[in-house]
């Protein structure tokens, strides 16, 4: 069974704090992704990575950065959290190649106060 694990289910942080969201997958997937889900907006891609130490901006990268030091781990960093970053954050992974589905973690509900 594919397992994508996010370090926290719920987080509450203060405005201006630096926030780390961690994601680990156990299927040796090359691709890893960070999405956020907001009502009426669906899933929007923040950043993704095709390989270790490699990253690509998604559709909404502003205010975020990522780190991929090991193949199985992909971290999302909010450099200075703001209230408009309150959201559900979803990590996903997939094999590199055509016609492969992505597997998601359980999500992290982040509230910035």
């Amino acid at each position: 069974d594919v397992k994508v694990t996010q370090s926290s289910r719920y987080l509450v942080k203060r405005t201006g704090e630096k926030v780390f969201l961690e994601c680990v997958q156990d299927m040796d997937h090359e691709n890893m992704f960070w999405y956020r889900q907001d009502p009426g907006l669906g899933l929007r891609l923040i950043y993704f990575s095709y390989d270790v130490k490699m990253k690509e901006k998604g559709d909404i990268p502003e205010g975020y950065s990522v780190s991929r030091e090991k193949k199985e781990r992909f971290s999302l960093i909010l450099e200075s959290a703001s209230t408009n970053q309150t959201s559900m954050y979803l990590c996903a992974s997939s094999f590199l190649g055509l016609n492969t589905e992505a597997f998601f973690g359980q999500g992290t509900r982040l509230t910035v106060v």
Partner: protein
Amino acid sequence: DQQVKQNSPSLSVQEGRISILNCDYTNSMFDYFLWYKKYPAEGPTFLISISSIKDKNEDGRFTVFLNKSAKHLSLHIVPSQPGDSAVYFCAAESSGDKLTFGTGTRLAVRP
């Protein structure tokens, strides 16, 4: 620019009847389409997919139809069950690139 659109934010269906969820896309380069199901406080789970070389794919109670000329796909669930109540997202990709998701449709199946 929303490349994948789900124009119905919600749908309510009687148990045992058919549920039809729709999805439209604008990017003609998309060649692989997927449906995901999401329960509250959980991550999305993969449901069914279809390649652009096909027009139909079936898996048990779930069938996905693709109309390339209309840039439209739909998910049929027959018969609908209360456990199918969830948010359904369609997604599309081009040549193994990243997935682009729609905004989701919340399905409620009434007992």
